[in-house]
């Protein structure tokens, strides 16, 4: 079968990392992280449905410094994957697919997901009375 001079798909080992390609792989990484997070979500539902003290123990864990660090990373991964996912949906609709627009929307995704995360935490912490 004749293949001619078709362009090769990029070899990641010799491909210059770009801002946009970093966002692309981060979408996958956050996706895997969120998939693992659903295990905790199911466990949380089970402790909630149970009668023991597992729910209180889990709540105490999330209130600890280590728990909050994980929750913060989790919330950023969620908002990032959400924002970048919407960016993908725009591409699917054929909008913003040229390089300049892709770079602009990349910045929007990074900034917006960070603002959403900080906003969510500001709201949550204010409900706790700033503690």
């Amino acid at each position, binding site marked *: *079968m004749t293949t001619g001079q078709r362009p090769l798909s990029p070899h990641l080992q010799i491909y210059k990392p770009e801002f946009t390609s970093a966002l692309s792989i981060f979408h*996958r990484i956050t*996706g*895997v992280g*969120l*998939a693992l997070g*659903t*295990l905790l*979500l*199911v466990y949380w*539902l*089970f402790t*909630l*449905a149970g009668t023991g003290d597992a*729910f*209180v123990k889990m*709540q105490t864990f999330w*209130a600890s410094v280590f728990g909050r660090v994980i929750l913060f990373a989790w*919330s950023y991964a*969620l908002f990032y994957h*959400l924002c970048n*996912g*919407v960016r*993908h*949906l725009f591409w*699917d609709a054929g909008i913003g697919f040229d390089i300049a627009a892709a770079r602009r929307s990349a910045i929007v995704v990074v900034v917006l997901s960070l603002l959403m995360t900080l906003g*969510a935490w500001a*709201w*949550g912490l204010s*409900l*706790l009375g700033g503690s």
Partner: protein
Amino acid sequence: MGLRTDLAKVRGLGSAKEGSAHWWSQRVTAVALVPLIFWFVASIISLVGAQQDVVQAWVGTPWVSVLLILLCVAMFHHLQLGMQVILEDYIHVEWLKIASVMLIKFLAVAFLLASIFAILKIAFLG
């Protein structure tokens, strides 16, 4: 070398006419998840520090139970589709690729049923 043309050799070995189904399901679940996630995150934040019975009462509210089950269905389906693509891209040993894709699908169904069971138990038994 036979007398068959290149086209004849590949005909029928393609996408089995459903190549876009996976892609489309991922988009449908993504769109469904956008409002569901905003609602879920806002709800969880407003429940921060709440006692177990308060959270149970929230989960047991009929419309909340339904939305939570919808969230779980869309989420685990989306998760399973995305993980499949990642596994197919990075695992190059054929049997291992098939086995891990099967495993992720089994796990997704198992955890989906587990979460629905927990939600219904809270809704019906408190």
